[in-house]
């Protein structure tokens, strides 16, 4: 009888990969966005299985709550939803397939032949306090610069949309 976490891992892995495939293969942009939503949810669940509680929450709030809503706005502003005719000609299937399988095979091969220096992960410990402490001590500089990055994004987005 497999453990509960193993079963959950397979369920969420299946959800994530399945919807990811829909994201890149469907003809309708809106379906892609909704599938991306499901896929990101699956990843958030996997974060929880890896005991990254804070990031699972961030994933749901920033990615699903923010970025995805923004994306759907983008789709609605740039396509006419009513006529679902959104062209997808596939010029570069063959080189893409070669390139990607090449990378993929090498990676999988090396991943499975490498001996990882694993420590047994610590169970039942909140990461949120550790992350909070690290962000305000060792990583306070990148934290500040991240705020500047967001400011620049704000200014940039306004620049693109201003009239004059």
């Amino acid at each position, binding site marked *: 009888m497999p453990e509960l976490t193993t079963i959950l891992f397979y369920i969420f892995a299946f959800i994530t990969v399945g919807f990811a495939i829909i994201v890149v293969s469907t003809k309708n942009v809106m379906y892609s966005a909704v599938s991306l939503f499901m896929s990101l949810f699956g990843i958030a669940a996997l974060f929880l299985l890896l005991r990254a509680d804070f990031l699972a929450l961030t994933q749901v709030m920033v990615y699903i709550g923010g970025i995805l809503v923004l994306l759907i706005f983008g789709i609605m502003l740039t396509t006419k939803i009513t006529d679902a005719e959104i062209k997808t000609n596939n010029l570069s299937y063959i080189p893409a397939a070669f390139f990607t399988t090449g990378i993929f095979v090498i990676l999988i091969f*090396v991943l499975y032949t490498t001996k990882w220096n694993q420590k047994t992960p610590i169970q039942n410990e909140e990461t949120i306090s550790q992350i909070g402490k690290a962000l305000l001590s060792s990583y306070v500089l*990148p934290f500040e*610069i991240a705020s*500047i990055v967001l400011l*620049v994004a704000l*200014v940039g987005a306004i620049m693109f949309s201003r009239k004059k």
Partner: protein
Amino acid sequence: MITLAELVNAVPLLIIAIAAILTLLITTFFKKSTDVVFAVTIISLFAAIFFYFGDLEKDALIFTESLRINMVSIMFSVIALTAVFISVLSAKSYIEKEEINFGEYYSLSLFATLGMLVMIHSANLIVLFIGLELMSICFFVLTGFLRKRVKSNEGALKYFLLGAFMTGFLLFGISLIYGTSGTLDFIKMLQNQSLVKQPLFLIGVALFSIGFFFKMGIFPFHMWVPDVYEGAPTSVTGLMSTAGKIAAVGTLAPFIVNTNVTSLKVIFSVLAVLTMLFGNVIALSQVNIKRLLAFSSIASAGYILVGITAMNEFSVKGVAFYLFAYTFMQLGAFILVSVIEKPSDSSNDYKGVNLDDYKGLASKNPSLAVLLTIFLFSLGGIPPFAGFWGKYYLFYAAIKSELVWLSVIAILLSIISIYYYLKIIVYMWFSKESGNEVEIVVPPFASIALYIAAGLTILFGLFPNLFFVMFKTVLK
């Protein structure tokens, strides 16, 4: 805790950060304040360069080991700041001509500069990543700054999509580096000698390098360069092609040179040859001067990669000198292009950027023709200009690492490049004017920038050692 001594070491970065936010505030609260913003920008850049030559500690880890202040990082920072300084000086008249005279242009340039400095000084991969992204996001916006012009929009979209795609590879590399080494700290990584024997760590480093190769425009990650350089406003192109490249090289080169692995050397030298070949050969057939300079900058990235591939004590210094010389000649050429460019009424295209527009330039405005000739000779690597010594130091480093074949190929390919530079020069001096042309007015700040660039190209061509005297502790 952050101490006062640490803040003193970070003064140049603080100046840039404060100036960037200040310019943004001035733009927001005062209408028609772009002249003030321009002055603040120029003064802050100058002050930052000045403080780098001041009393900095010459080997320090500051802000809880996030930033590393040492001679190599100071050297690259000064070069990057110089590039931004000259570029911003010349940009004023250009953005007035194109009617995009907004204060945001200067703040975004300063924010990009902050990103570059953070990147160059970064002591761990988190800081590096965030600095890189700050720079990239500013460049995305600046590329699309002419937002009524479809070409500029397209350039921004291409740069954005490919940039984010390549950031993916960079991050994948970082994640493999983290997984194999268990740390994101450069210093801890380099202390662990056994790491370079792990194949997965090397794959990580290779993927990490791909992210930087994209920024430098190394084949086969160059596909954005000609399109984005052509689509971006010309003053931004100058900024991206010099300062952006300096930041990428200044971050990557010291790290790669320290790893010194044979398998990476093989890959890098092959990429260097392909880059030089591709850049120089395609440049031969270009008719648009912005595209021509884009391909020539791809070729330059190839020469830089030759220096990095050498991975010995001469590489960093050769790369630094080449970038320093490259800043003046490449930026000078782009400033000239931006001066000669005509303001266009149609929304799609840049006017006056074809090679035909340079026919008979010498008879119209001899001083401009002389300046452009200097820059192009220097780019072609003809003595006594700075570009010659730049290539000399790069290829010297390669020869010292017994990569003679690579140097020979590089020299042969850089001889090809002289052909297309000469073509422009012949157009300027010996061709008849194509039509009735309006007189070219050189705005005051642009001409100051041009004369600074030309003067330094000649100065460092005649006295290349001056550069090493400036940063003397890098050399023993």
